[in-house]
Structure formats: C-alpha cells, structure tokens
C-alpha cells in the first residue's frame, strides 16, 4: 500500500517560493508573540516535554481520545487545540490526527506509549488544517504510513508556506520547533480499509464540505465514527470548503448509525444525530441570512456585520472565526 519510495523525475522543481512573511495579526496575538519572545530571548529549544504525555480517555475498548482546548494556537497551548485519537488493534496502532505542533504530537505519542508498545503503523489525517497535521513529525521515528484524502496533499502543499508562517508567529519559537509538513504516503480516493489486527478502520473520503479534503473514519469493532472537522461542538465551526456542500453532507451524516461520534473540536464522544444539530443550525443561519442580504442587493461588508450574529452566544471563538465564515459563504452563495 505504500507508494514507491523513489520515482525519478526530469521535472524541475522551482527554487523560488514567493514569501509572504506574516499573517493577519490581531493585537492580542501580537502581544502574545511579543511576550513569548521577551520571556525566552536566548533559550535554545530544550525537549523537557519528553516526559510529558497528553491526557487521553478510553471512550470505547481500544479507542482513545485526547480533547484539545477551545483556543487559537499560542505558546502556552502549543497547538493543542483539536481532538486527537488513537485506536489499538491486536497488531498495531493507528493515530487519527496529530495536534498542532511536533511538541504536542510528541506528547500524544507518549500517551500512546503509556497504553501500548505495539507499533504505530498508520498516522491518519482527517484533513489538511495545521491543528490536525502539524504533529505528524513526532511520529517519524515509527516510520508509519501517513494516510489522507487524495486532495489533502494539494491543499496542504499549496498552503504550506502560509501555514508555517502563521503558526511560527502564533506558537512562538519553542512550540514551533520540529514542525514539518508531512503529506500522505497513502492517498485515499473513495473507501479504504486499514487492518490493525482483530479490528479494522474504514476510511471514506467526503465531498467538499469543511475543506475539499475531509475524510471520515469508522472503527468497525466499536462502531465509533471519527468525523474530524466535519463536526464542531462548542468551538465555532470554521468554513474552508463549501457551506452548501457541508450542509448537504451533514444531512447525510445525520441518517448514519453509529454507537458514538468523535468531533474534531468538542467533547470526546457524542451521539448522532443530536451532535450535528447545533452546527447545522449555525451553518443554516449563515446561509439564510446571506441569501436574504444578497437578494436585497447588500454587499459582502454588509453581510459581515449582521449575518449569523444570532449564533454569537452559542459558540466559543465566534469573534475569531465568524466573519471569515461569512466572507467565504458570501463568495460562494453570490454565484447562485
């Protein structure tokens, strides 16, 4: 299943990448970054984290979940802001998402090692976002097969420089240390089954929704469905794909049967279909407001001031992501 290790190519790889050094900076983040820098101006990276391990819970036999914080990345949280999971089979272990830094990924790996010494054969990424893939480097020593949606590689590679720049700035030098872009070595298109010994994981690529490279995973032994960022709970959803596609997919998912689902952001385990409802309500509110505003001849700026604000008190991080969601939704819906 591994792709051939080397394919020689006459194609030339460009030596120049346009550099856009910085990302949009909020004053809070600028202050955070400045403080982090001031606190440790001359310290080299010291891997004191090596003894630490991420806190995990066994939500079903052999299924472990670490719950990320409802925060933006910062030097304090080291990119530990999404849920990360692992499933232990008779023969091997599969990791599902790796948190937002090599440091946090390493703590996840330590947690796995407190539970089992079986080899970590698969590192699965549910989609391309840094808070789910930037810990991939922590598993290099296990020489795993990295697994993702066929379109994950394109999505992540084309955003790599920007993601690195943003995260370097927001995480600070210490937490940024060791981060590498590691793309899938097994690209999934449709359905793929991974055997862990005595249990298998069924991977299914999904149409454009949260991103254009979302993939869901089912652990057949416990009927646990890992939804990645197709499901946000408590943490406001973030739209980087298609709002219409996302709502359509949620409609399909709500008819699925599963003993439990694990969101990309939210509690460690939830139940269908209730788990999806707040997110469906949030996205539907944006769609309905934006459609009405477009019909009234209003502009994108008008929409960013009013659309979906009825949802403000229902979510954490609303102020950080909502305007961007409305912007993306408007740019999609104005073509209807």
């Amino acid at each position: 299943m591994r792709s051939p290790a080397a394919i020689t190519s006459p194609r030339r790889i460009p030596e120049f990448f346009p550099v856009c050094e910085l990302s949009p900076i909020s004053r809070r983040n600028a202050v955070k970054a400045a403080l982090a820098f001031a606190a440790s101006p001359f310290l080299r990276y010291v891997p004191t984290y090596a003894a630490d391990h991420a806190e995990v819970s066994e939500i079903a036999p052999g299924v472990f979940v670490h719950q990320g914080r409802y925060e933006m990345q910062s030097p304090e949280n080291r990119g530990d802001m999404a849920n990360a999971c692992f499933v232990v089979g008779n023969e091997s272990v599969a990791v599902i998402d790796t948190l937002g830094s090599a440091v946090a990924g390493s703590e996840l790996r330590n947690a796995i090692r407190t539970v089992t010494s079986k080899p970590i054969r698969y590192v699965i990424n549910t989609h391309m976002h840094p808070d789910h893939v930037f810990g991939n480097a922590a598993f290099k020593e296990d020489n795993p097969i990295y697994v993702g949606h066929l379109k994950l590689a394109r999505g992540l590679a084309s955003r790599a420089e920007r993601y690195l720049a943003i995260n370097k700035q927001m995480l600070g030098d210490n937490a940024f240390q060791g981060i590498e872009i590691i793309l899938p070595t097994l690209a999934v298109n449709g359905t793929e089954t991974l055997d862990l010994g005595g249990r298998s994981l069924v991977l299914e690529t999904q149409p454009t929704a949260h991103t254009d490279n979302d993939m869901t995973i089912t652990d057949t032994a416990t009927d646990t469905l890992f939804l990645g960022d197709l499901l946000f709970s408590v943490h406001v959803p973030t739209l980087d794909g298609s709002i219409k596609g996302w709502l359509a997919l949620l409609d399909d998912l709500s008819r699925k049967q599963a003993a439990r689902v694990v969101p990309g952001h939210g509690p460690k385990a939830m139940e269908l279909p209730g788990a999806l409802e707040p997110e469906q309500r949030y996205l539907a509110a944006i769609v309905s407001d934006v459609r009405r505003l477009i019909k009234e001849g209003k502009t994108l700026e008008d929409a960013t001031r009013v659309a979906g604000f009825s949802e403000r008190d229902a979510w954490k991080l609303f102020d950080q992501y909502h305007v961007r969601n409305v912007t993306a939704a408007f740019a999609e819906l104005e073509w209807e």
Partner: protein
Amino acid sequence: MPALRSLVYLRRVAALATAAFVLLAPAAKAEEDVWPELRQQTFGDRAIKAEDGVVVLEIPGTAEDASLVPLTVRVPPSVTQNLKSLTLIVDKNPDPLVAALSFGPAAGSGGERSFSTRIRIDSFSHVRAVLETEDGTLHMATKFVAAAGGCGAMQAKDPDAESVDLGKMIVKTFPPALDSNPIWSGLVMIKHPNSNGMQLNVNTANIIPARFVKEVTVKRDGEIVFQMQSTFSISTNPNFRFTFGRGADNSLDVAIKDTDGAVFTAQSAPSGS
C-alpha cells in the same frame, strides 16, 4: 502512474516550502516608505489634497482573509462635480497599482457615488484611493491595513469546482431607494482565477502563469460609465460594485478582457434585477 508521480512532486514541494520558509522568513522586508516614488511615477508633480473629505476609503484595518479584502470608495453627496478618474493603490503589493478607472458620461452625479471591489494585500501596507474631479484636482484618502500573504496564498477553496466555470458573469442593476435619487448602482462579477504568477500549481510543481483581468468597460444604454485598467491585485473572481447615473433603460453592457486576450461580455437583465 500520474497520481503517484504527482504525490512525489507534492512531497518535494512541501519540503521546499519548509526549506524556503526557514531560510527566508527571518529576513523581514525593510520598512521603507515607497509612496514618494510611487506618487512621482503615477502623478508626477501634481498636487494631491490628502483627506479633504472629497473621497472616503473604507477598508478593514485588519483583513480576515488577505486574498479577499473588501474595499469601498465613497464620494459624499456634498461633492457635486463630475468625476474624472479614480486610482487605487496598495503601496507594498508586487504591482502597487490595483486599478485605474476613467469615468464616462454615464457615471452620474447628484447623489453619493461609490466604487467597491475585493483586493489582495501582500504585506502590511498603506492602501490609497486617489480621485480626480472634473476640475483636475487630485484628492486622496489613505488607510493602513494589517494583512499579509494575499498574493502567494491560493484562494480557491475548491479549485476543481472553480476551474469549470471560468468566464461566467453576473451583471445586476439596483434602482435607488428613492425615485428622486438619480444614482443607480450596478454589480459586475466574473469567474476568473485572476492568477498573479505567484501561485503554485502543486500538480506540476510549477508557478501558475499570470492570467488576470486587465480591462473592464461598463456602459449604460450605450454610454460609458467607466473604463478600468486592472491588475492581479484584484481578488480571484473579480467583483465590482459601482454607481451610475439614471438613464432611459438603465441596462448595462460589460466587456472584460484578460491578459490572455480572452474577451468576456454580458448584459444586465432588464428593469433593475
């Protein structure tokens, strides 16, 4: 096995991006004021009245998405002269000229006039709107925007879906709320990548060649509202919102040319829809 080969490319691209970032990121651009030279190149020795209230620039101080920053220029109703031209500039963009409009007889007067679009901003920069009124005076409004990475960043969220519709256009007109207001507004949208030669095609690991909208002509009932020269500082799927003077039919004809020489045309649906 093209899929596998492209995966290998992608991994190289990712490794190179990491390397390029590590090598280049610490060398921040020197903070220099490029405006005096830009001003000389664009307007020569002509006097420019800054912030005199004739032109107002609205743009967020911090952009949520640097590849899609909404910008609006307003000329308040107290300004009664006809308008001659409007130049939009982002000091620190690779090509600082965003767009240069020259207004025609159908541009209208007798109410608030405005022009809106969405732009890319490559690094922290001053953004300027320079308006020329009929008497030949230049008026300027300036804002500073904290936004970066808009030019190299790939904006398409679903590139496969986007590439299908290139050239699709929507043209709409909106009558004023009050019949006594002689100013209508119009909207022109075109599906176009407006690629700036700075985005990476990760399937081939080559830079995507520049292809962008360079000329837009909007006519109302056959008379020119404006003619615009534009650059890749306009966002993907260019979007223009503008005012025009009331005419007999108020129907808009739009012609758009891109740098590949392709011409796209569209008309507004009749009677203000």
